[in-house]
């Protein structure tokens, strides 16, 4: 069932454009060129962050941090192996992608951990970055309960990602 979603989205988008007498190919080309800019902007941070994360992994530090956080994570039903990702996710998107890619490579993209990591990455955002960019640009200084509510949503996302990974794929 899920296998139909992506091909059908591609077909529907193109067919809709043709129906409106627009050229789907040209619009996709424009967007794909933008994608190249996006890629150029995420490659340098990926290099820097994966250097740091690979160092931490080589030092044996990631296992120690996971073990240290394990009781809290187990309480929420989140696999302790994902501790690093959960800690980094609200702060930086590229760091989270780097850590997530590392975890998926280590455990395998189709393992339970790999899938949990993928669902976490797909369903959460860089909360602190979003708050600082949106409110910073608009000159909002008194943010009241925004961070608390957004972080509660993140925590729910991490718990639900662990739960849905187990429910759908185990």
């Amino acid at each position, binding site marked *: 069932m*899920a296998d139909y979603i992506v091909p059908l989205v591609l077909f529907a988008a193109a067919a*809709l454009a043709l129906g409106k007498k627009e050229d789907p190919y040209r619009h996709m080309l424009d967007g794909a060129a933008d994608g190249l800019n996006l890629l150029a902007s995420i490659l340098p941070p990926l290099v820097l962050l994966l250097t740091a994360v690979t160092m931490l992994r080589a030092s*044996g530090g990631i296992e120690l941090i996971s073990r240290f956080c394990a009781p809290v994570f187990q309480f929420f039903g989140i696999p302790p192996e994902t501790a690093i990702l959960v800690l980094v996710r609200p702060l930086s998107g590229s760091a989270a992608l780097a850590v997530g890619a590392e975890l998926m490579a280590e455990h395998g*993209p189709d393992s339970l951990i790999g899938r949990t990591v993928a669902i976490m990455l797909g369903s959460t955002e860089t909360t602190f970055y979003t708050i600082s960019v949106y409110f910073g640009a*608009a000159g909002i200084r008194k943010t009241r309960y925004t961070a608390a*509510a957004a972080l509660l949503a993140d925590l729910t996302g991490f718990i639900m990602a662990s739960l849905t990974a187990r429910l*759908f794929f185990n």
Partner: protein
Amino acid sequence: MILGWIWTLIVFLSILFSVFTGKINEVSAATAHGAQAGVTAAIGIAGSICLWSGVGNLMDKTGLTGLLAKLLRPLLNLLFPGTKKDPQLRKDLSANICANILGLGNAATPMGIKAVKGMRLPHRPHMATDEMCRLIVLNTASIQLIPANVAAVRASLGCAAPFDILPAVWLTSITSATVGLTAAWCMGKLCRNG
């Protein structure tokens, strides 16, 4: 600046841990491997990023954004009742949410900032309103149709069905957005009474 602190902290921790584990030569070698892994990861997801940026742009240009905006109207009325009287604000708001759904993060940010600016109170311009908090929660819950970056990483690692996580991602996003918005609503009430 925050990333500067995190980066330095991670490197410091690697050295600190390696003192105890005796793995300093592995840590040293990891600098070269890690940098290369960054390039490999970026190249590995290049195809998918370009493809989905293209599809996102196509959906935006063919009026899917307008259709989504129509479908989202009841939700916007519920979450942002103050925007009913302001058509420009409503347009920025729905453009922000639609860009998020279509996975156009770069397009979503400027619209979101415009929407926050439009929501400012004239007498207290530096204070976040309840509606701003809800907008941030909606943006950080990452409700998107196709999480292309993650699927790209999975595909680059040899995953046979990189999109099989879609239903789980949707369910997770919707749940976390609902919890976040409910929490924001409760905290908004408490703040007013307190």
